[in-house]
């Protein structure tokens, strides 16, 4: 398993360990899990090659995730890193590989309304991160062949207790009074509670024989207006929910400007808004889950409301 140090990665590793799988994790810094661990960089081909020796199946989660950054860095880690891993795994006789992707690879600006998992689009995807993930997904699925089953799983907005990505960013902004609702806040958005996402990754490993060659979107199947979601997450985290609105057009313009500025100045901090984020907050993103559930034989265990209760408990 690559990239086991984040909330989502740890959850996947822990789920595999809990059921008695023999797990090796590979990432830059220690994940502090009770299993065999190799610390290394996904772009280091020697480290990657040795890590897949004697392995049956790979879950590839390591990626550079950031609202901004140079195309070169995204491609280096997300595209070439993934391609190198797939090649090494194939050489080492690995039988199945689950690539953890994102619905952003197929988001080209139009609202996703009960959308099915259409093909990744590296040219139209709306951020450098999404473009790199799209290129990588295409490469990974191309590597699928008899004896080497590759499945791409696209969980949408994974969150849960200990989340440093979605929830932490929302809370930080809300605390600073900088969180705004985009438009009416009515865009329907689906999310994935971390335990459900982890279950789906494990299910994809187990069902690789059936699911190989496919990309499958995974979500809770409980879309809500984005204002509802932000409010619930803020309340569960003990901060005041956002009340102020910003029109979608203005938000996109601000995001576009900030992206230019941050990229030009090579700033390392998160910009206050990006075009991608504006679209994520301002347009519908929810998905047809019928095929995913049928193929993976997976159902979300934790409902949105239960997840929010767990988030509040662990505060």
């Amino acid at each position, binding site marked *: 398993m690559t990239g086991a140090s984040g909330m989502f990665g740890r959850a996947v590793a822990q789920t595999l360990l809990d059921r008695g799988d023999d797990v090796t994790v590979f990432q830059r810094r220690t994940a502090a899990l009770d299993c065999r661990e190799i610390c290394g960089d996904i772009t280091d081909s020697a480290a990657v090659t040795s890590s897949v020796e004697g392995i049956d199946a790979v879950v590839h989660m390591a990626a550079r995730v950031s609202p901004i950054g140079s195309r070169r860095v995204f491609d280096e880690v997300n595209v070439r890193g993934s391609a190198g891993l797939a090649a090494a795994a194939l050489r080492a006789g690995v039988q199945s590989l689950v690539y953890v992707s994102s619905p952003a690879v197929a988001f080209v600006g139009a*609202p996703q*309304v*009960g959308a099915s998992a259409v093909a990744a689009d590296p040219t139209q995807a709306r951020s450098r991160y999404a473009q790199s993930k799209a290129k990588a997904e295409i490469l990974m699925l191309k590597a699928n062949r008899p004896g080497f089953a590759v499945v791409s799983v696209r969980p949408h907005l994974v969150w849960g207790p200990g989340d440093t990505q979605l929830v932490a960013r929302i809370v930080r902004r809300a605390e600073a009074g900088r969180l705004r609702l*985009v*438009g*009416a*806040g*009515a*865009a*329907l958005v689906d999310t994935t509670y971390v335990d459900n996402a982890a279950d789906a990754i494990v299910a994809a490993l187990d069902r690789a024989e059936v699911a190989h060659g496919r990309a499958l979107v995974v979500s809770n*199947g*409980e*879309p*809500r*207006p*984005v*204002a*509802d979601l932000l*409010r619930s997450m803020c309340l569960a985290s003990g901060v005041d929910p956002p009340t102020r609105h910003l029109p*979608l057009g203005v938000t996109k313009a601000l995001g576009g400007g900030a992206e230019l500025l941050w990229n030009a100045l090579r700033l390392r901090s998160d910009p206050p808004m990006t075009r991608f984020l504006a679209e994520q907050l*301002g*347009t*519908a993103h*929810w998905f*047809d*889950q*019928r095929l995913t559930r049928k193929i993976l034989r997976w159902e979300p265990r934790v409902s949105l409301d239960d997840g929010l209760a767990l988030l509040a408990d662990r505060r």
Partner: protein
Amino acid sequence: MISRSQPGHYPPSDLDGWDHTWSRLVSALDADGETRTWHVLDNGVVDPIGTLLCVHGNPTWSYMWRDLASLSTRWRVIAVDALNMGFSERTGGNRRLAGHVADLSAVTTALSIEGPVVTVAHDWGGPISLGWARAHLDQLAGVVLMNTGIARPEGVQIPALIQAVRTRATLRATCVASQVFLRGALRLARPSLSREVHQAYVTPYARPTARAGIGDFVEDIPFAPGRPSFTMLDYIAGSLEHLAETPALLLWGVKDPVFSEAFLSDLHARLPHASVHRYAEAGHLVMEDIKGAPVILDWLETVRSPTSPALASVHPATSSGGGGDDGRRLWAALEDRSNDEEIAVAEMSPDGSTQMSRSVTFAELDQQVKLLADRLVAAGLQPGDRVAPLIPPGIDLVAIVYACWQAGAVVVAADAALGGRGVASALRAARPDYVVADWRGLVFARGLRLGATMLSLKPLPRAVQFTLGVAASLAKPADASPARELGFGPGPADPAAVVFTSGSTGPSKAVVYRHGQLEAQRDALAATYSLSRDDRLVAAFAPFAIFGPALGMSSVVPAMDISSAATLDASAFASAAQAIGATIAFASPAALVNVVATSDGLDKGQRDAMTRLRAVASAGAPISTAALRAVSQNFANADIHTPYGMTEVMPVTDISLEEIDLAGRGDGVCVGRPINGVELAVTRIGALGQSTWEFIGKPGATGEICVLAAHASGGYDRLWAIQNHTRRDGWHRTGDVGHIDRDGRLWVEGRTSHLILSADGPVTPVGIEHRAELVDGVHQAAAVGVGPAGTQQLVLVISTTERSAGVLADPQLTDAVRQAVPFDVAAVLTVRHLPVDRRHNSKIERQRIATWAESVLTGARVSRL
């Protein structure tokens, strides 16, 4: 003409909806003995039942048949691009009708098409396909024709547009040198073609050299003697007499400036046995406009089996012996009372006074009906002719309707409540042979150019009569002595009336009732409401007003604007009741609500008249329990009833206010038990909302409500696809969804088109709305689905008692609604008022609300609902 030849070739592989593996190039000798190549669509079905031989018109090509090719799994689809058209060879010469017919035979011979063939054709393909059919009668299993013609119907001119294009000077410029004709023809699509489909149609005609065939077709239009192809067309038209036994389907887009409805009538007259569907909203390119492939494939099912539902449903249960118990004619009660001086029908004066303005006794009415029947016959009326009376409810309307029935005519009941445009489209759909009207109605009808004989009800000055094109006045004694034989009359299976659905659930549909069915309806009403000749009726609901004389009851028409039910006020209602000492009243909910709202100023006599009513029924649209309760408070001694039914079957069930209270709350609206003679069932609904004919026997199970009754209508008028979908073995599918409880009561949960098609299966809206409306702060609720069918999310759109700040309901209210509803609610949206239909002012327009909610929930700017 440009003479340049080019061999046939393959279409590009990227045409929208086109499978390149269908394309074949077929070589054969043409009519002149030259070897030619045709581009042919062949969907390659192995071991087919038979072949669909599809023939395109001008200026299209076989692309028109792509959906048929992809959907047909049991019939092999062969579609031939004519020479000089589509992707077939450009011969460099001109081709005429006879040549195209011979070419088509050459191609089918080259392809060795054996076994049954159904021809499918559009526009110019019509005559070509029928020419082929004439030469292959042994193989011919059916013909399908769409917006075409084989003869110029009497009185129809070739459209000015075509005339203009056809002159020598303009033909080349519009058809060949430019794409004016090509693009103009494609613009006749209703709705417009998508960019991709449009592109696919023009692809083979990109260059002027490729368009010579388009010009040749226009030049060859043979609708006049002396044209080169007139003889051939005339021969083909004459050959239709060989098709008397051949199944035929006519699909017609009405909004076609070229092949107008007159061409449909002409073809229908030549193929009277044909199944016909007239699409009021579609245009010339009907195959595109209506996505015709599934309709054709459904029809083919009926061609194969002689015991098909479509054939069975044309002659429902009533054909075996009629509907009424004793088979009493509709006018029997009137004849029984032919010496009776009691008031049969009264009209109230419109000035608001409590006086009757006119009345007739049963004896007078009986005389009047017989007289009018004689005069109709004298005016040329034949049994089976359709008569549209454009007369407000009252004595004259009653008299003319019964006269029509006695004379064997079919009454076209285009109710003024449909509105001017609704009446116009209803009349166009029903094609009356006669219009009977006062001068206002005659002016209106004249503007519609119906081709009907115009009869005035009252004498008109000669000049006016001439100006309006009125053939005769029914007020004048006929010149000739009555030709009508006594004892002659229509039988129970003969059509009696064409009535129209409200159009609130889609375009208004024409429904045909036979005499037996109306007799059964009369008897059903009598039994349900224990009606006898001792009852006297306030007829404020038009359809039942006609039944007064049939039931032998006195009836009174209150003063109101009949195009708007809500104009009936308490005083007008009570005065009418008082005038005849009424015991029964039928009115629409909107009328009753207004009667309740204006009941304060009634005098004692009026109040007493209201108290004397023993039953009041609200009919025509759903009414809320609260409104019904308010009605009951104004009628101290009346049972308050409301029947459930639809234009096609009325009534189906009936329920009283007491029974509503007894039933309590449940998932849906309780509409009571089936009336005597009605059988009820629900059928399973598929995961994507599809109808099935699988009956569910289990009580409480939700499905589509189906009705079997002797008083159900005979079916739809020239709406084959709807007829085929809604009728089977005499059962009528209502389009309503609901369940039958353990006590045999029917609960209506919504319309099939309003189901929320979630991933867990279809969910019905009404029960959810009732639960949401119990939440504090919610005034009215609509439950709708957003997203693609099969994965829809449930959304509640509510109007609130207090104004809401934004489009999203506030969090507390949202939580409360979620708590109240036993399904996952994705969002709760608020609006000031939920839109309701204009006609009934009561049916929530869920489809419109769903479209709006889906837009809001994509994050788009919030528009007004």
